[in-house]
């Protein structure tokens, strides 16, 4: 048996350079227990098919990718989808979400995070719930009622003790935190009432101070509006799904499985994890939209779109603020959007259109440098 394994290893070695890793692995897996001759025959066939399936030089892969993602757009739903039954969050899906992804919106209309915890934590539902409560961003509004005493220019913050207990916050901690946030010492604390006398002369500034107090976050992580606990699909325990994202701060927490913390905010992913992560996020999010709509799109198309959005080193949206607006060709930009603006800047800067793209050549009436348009014939001698 041992002999066979070694021969197979050398057998596959030859194909490792010529075939993608995943195929070789699959091949190894599927040919287990076969004899070397058969394996070789199969491997040769696989290699031949792989080579035959290569893309042809000159193929307009960009256009095909764009069409493959755009065309099913008409078949997508517009409605935001509410998961039926259990506590789940409304996720924009279908076309609106896809547009959001290619637009690279600063904040998705429904920012969501999935936080998976370390294995030992994950199994214990109580602890996961506890964790979820800890990260929920709760402002003072939920903890307290506020009374403004305009006569004495004082503000009374009456803390609700039961809510404090529910979130596991001690009264003195709350006071300290509040004082720190508003950068004022409380005048005095009477039971569960904190009295501030900020010493403002005008009522409007007092009002503004009240707003500040109300916005103060007593516990949790900024922007995590809600955290719900759900069962892991593989049944290995529970995980947290949040309304609102804050990748940077969540990643700093202990007890999380950092490799499985997912945000659906691509900009945020870029800012915290870099452009490669952003590219992968675009692929993942776009693929997810297409899959849930039941539309089959080869992942290669999605990958190309993601790569085009990211190849300049920083994610760029698809459209006039992004790829289309930063093209080198003046005519291509002018023909897309903001025609007059592009013509004027081109003239000031003395730009030259080298006519290397598709639109430019269509405009001047020449063959486009794509496919058979790229092939040139010369005469010898």
């Amino acid at each position, binding site marked *: 048996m041992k002999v066979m394994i070694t021969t197979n290893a050398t057998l596959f070695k030859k194909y490792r350079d010529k075939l993608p890793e995943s195929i070789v692995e699959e091949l190894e897996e599927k040919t287990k227990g076969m004899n070397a001759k058969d394996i070789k025959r199969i491997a040769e066939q696989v290699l031949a098919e792989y080579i035959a399936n290569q893309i042809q030089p000159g193929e307009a892969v960009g256009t*095909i990718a764009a069409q493959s993602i755009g065309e099913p757009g008409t078949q997508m739903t517009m409605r935001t989808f*509410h998961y039926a039954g259990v*506590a789940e969050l409304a996720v924009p899906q279908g076309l609106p979400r896809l547009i959001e992804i290619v637009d690279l919106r600063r904040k998705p209309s429904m920012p969501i995070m999935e936080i998976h915890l370390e294995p030992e934590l994950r199994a214990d539902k109580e602890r996961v719930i506890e964790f979820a409560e800890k990260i929920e961003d709760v402002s003072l509004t939920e903890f307290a009622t506020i009374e403004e005493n305009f006569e004495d220019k004082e503000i009374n913050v009456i803390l609700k003790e039961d809510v404090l207990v529910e979130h596991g916050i001690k009264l003195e901690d709350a006071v300290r935190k509040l004082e720190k946030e508003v950068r004022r010492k409380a005048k005095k604390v009477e039971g569960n009432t904190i009295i501030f006398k900020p010493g403002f002369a005008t009522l409007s500034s007092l009002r503004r101070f009240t707003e500040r107090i109300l916005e103060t976050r007593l516990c949790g992580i900024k922007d995590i509006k809600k955290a719900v606990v759900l069962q892991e699909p593989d049944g290995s325990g529970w995980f947290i799904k949040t309304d609102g994202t804050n990748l940077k701060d969540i990643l700093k927490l202990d007890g999380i499985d950092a490799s499985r913390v997912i945000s659906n905010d691509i900009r945020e992913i870029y800012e915290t994890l870099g452009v490669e992560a952003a590219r992968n996020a675009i692929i993942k999010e776009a693929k997810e939209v297409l899959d849930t709509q039941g539309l089959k799109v080869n992942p290669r198309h999605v990958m190309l779109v993601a790569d085009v959005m990211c190849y300049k080193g920083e994610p760029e949206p698809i459209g006039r603020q992004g790829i289309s607006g930063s093209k080198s060709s003046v005519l291509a930009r002018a023909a897309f959007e903001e025609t007059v603006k592009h013509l004027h800047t081109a003239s000031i800067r003395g730009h030259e259109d080298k006519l290397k793209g598709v639109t430019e050549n269509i405009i001047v009436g020449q063959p486009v440098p794509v496919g058979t348009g790229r092939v040139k014939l010369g005469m010898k001698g």
Partner: protein
Amino acid sequence: MKGETTKKIDSIEFGILDPDTIRKMSQIRVVIPDTYDEDGYPIEGGLMDLHMGVIDPGLRCKTCGGRMATCPGHFGHIELVRPVIHIGYIKMIYSLLKTTCRSCGRLLLPTDQIQTYKKLITESGELPEEQELDVISQAKKVSKCPHCGKKQEKIKLIKPMTFYEGERRLLPSDIRRRMELIPDKDLRLLGIDPKKARPEWAILTVLPVPPVTARPSITLETGERSEDDLTHKLVDILRINQRLRDNISAGAPQLIIEDLWDLLQYHVTTYFNNEVSGIPPARHRSGRPLKTLAQRLKGKEGRFRYNLSGKRVNFSARTVISPDPNISINEVGVPREIAEELTVPEEITEWNINHAKDYIKRTEYPRAIYLIRPDGRRKKITDMNREEILQELAPGYVIERQLKDDDIVLFNRQPSLHRVSMMCHLVKVLPGRTFRLHPAVCKPYNADFDGDEMNMHVLQTEEAKAEALTLMLVQNQIISPRYGAPIIKGDEDIVSGGYLLTKKGTAFDKRIAEKILIKAGIKKMPSPDIGNNYSGKLLFSMLLPSTLNLEYRSLLCRDCEKCVGSKCPYDAYVKIKRGKLVSGVIDKVSLQGILLDTIFRQYGPEEAKEFLNKSTRLLLASTMHQGFSVSVEDTRISKEAQQEIKAIIADARQEVNRIIKDYNEGRLKKLPGKTLRETMEDMIMAILGKARKDAGDVAANYLSDYNPIIIMSRVGARGSLLNVTQMSAMVGQQAVRGKRIMRGYRNKSLPYFKEGEMGIEARGFVSSSFMEGLTPTEYFFHAMGGREALVDKGIRTAKSGYMQRRLVNALQDIVARKDGTVRDSDDVIVQYKYGEDGTDPMKCHGDYAVRLETKTYVEEKDRDEINIEDEGDDYD
């Protein structure tokens, strides 16, 4: 045509025209603000001066001597008495005024800093964007010139186009003088190329007048002339220019001169762009805003998108389409009328000269219409000159003959959302007045026959034909580049036919079997397999290549715990051995998926084409013999089934009422992340959803396996279980905005409900089926849901259209290169290897580069479930 040298444009430079060039380009100085005299003759020195080209038949251009058809038009110019700002460059001027010295014209940065920045200039001659912004923002803040020491006053731009320095107004002439002072070397740092765009050129002293051919006047039926918007604007400019000149020479007060100057500025501004914010648009007498230069260029109907990116063509035809399963998938039925009108050029060589003469001799349909001599002159072939032409004909001539069978054309249906929206077909001239196409190619074109029209383009060169034939021919497009599975495939009746033919027990006697086979063009007769009769499976096997071996599960598969293979009791296990269908039923999975896919990949496009052609004909022929029809009665379910469904509804109602009661009495528990009300709604929706599903199952159970509707939905021909449910069992909950219907009146949906009533009827639950008929309230709720779906569809098309346009625009220059990389038009690498493994999605097996085992083909998730409301009968 031959021997023509083709010129290739390498590049196009952009810049600002300088006054000298404008004067040099100009053929005439325009002074008179008028167009034609009383006799309708262009006034000399006027805006329609003959030096600028001709638009009237019979006249000659005074510059080139050409006539209307040959003279391209020439520029003229207007000498402006006072300079005016070009509105498009206002931002540049503003920035320059702020960043350069008010007195010596130098960039307001110390010399050493200028030097450091200069070193950063890239080979393109520009600073990187960031540094450029740095230069501008730094220089803006300087209050004392580091070069001449002069104090810098603040420059203000009062939008849209007046500049102030402190309190003093800067007139365009002052600004121009300042621009002149700025040295070339400093301009580079500010993002200006001084060779192509000296900033003073942005303040116009002389205005080019475009050729009359670019602004032709039109003659109305009344004989009245109507001038182009640009001409109108130029008349205004000339008039004010003249008044200003008169006032200056008459020594009018400065105030009046400035007013006229501003007026001139206004006219020149609106001449360039009539949509500048803050300036009232210049209007036509009728009140319509004038369409001036910027408006001509921009937008969907502007020069760039309408005329430059989109070209108009000849040799094309358009008409309504209709189906014809008897032609090949790669053919298109062309009406005789169209075939007679369109032509194909044929070059005469010594080998085809006699063949060409035949066309010329003919006076009836496939005849030659034009003759093109080697010098390019074309002549119409008539009865008068036919003999002459036959004598003259020699190699090197070209004839244009009428379209005939097997000519190569492109066929297209808008919107062209993907590349299979335009494919190459072969002409088949047929009687009738519609284009005929094979039903299997409907899917890629997204065509139906409810009035759709399509376009046909006749290819005119051999190169184009060869390219279309290899790259765009229908059978080469059977596999979709989007998902690597067939997109050209038989559907609906063909799929039903597949099931009816191959299901157990279908057999025909010899006479009928012959009839069916001959319809499919199969002339070989197999030997009977059931006594003297021929089984359906046997007939179907005649379509398969004789070496084909395949095993898979059909759509009928019930995922039994233990699969018994070809002994499947439901006949769901398809086994093809040496081209014979041994077991299993042919359904959607076969006809649209794995079987077609395998034939294409193993035997090539031609074989796949033949399979599609023959299977369509065979299956339609066999279906016609067996008969397959649907009546309203087929949706009726038995009394027992109705009782069961009633019970389901009653149960659901009870449960819902219980939840409502719980809610009202505060016993309902809130779900995390939802309000109490939402929790209740969710629970109700879930119950009602389940009720509909249960009712559907009951109906499907009670309907017989021979029910045509059931057959169609099971084998994947048309419709889903949902459709069956709605027709036979119940329509179910109607939703607006994804919720039960809440809108209408205050706290109620329709007047005859109680306020706050939350029961199932009051919120749009339709418990009737389409068969039973809906109650008035149900009908109304259904209409509400339907309306929403309709509106939704409308905005969706608009939104996805724009997204598609942006995607295509962003990605169109991305090409797979010879070295395996993927690059953009500037040769910047986007991917080192296309899709990381370099495989073509069209050749992929689904998502996999190489398929290592035969898997059951999984069809695109039942789209019918999602888009049930979209299947309206829309007329194009």
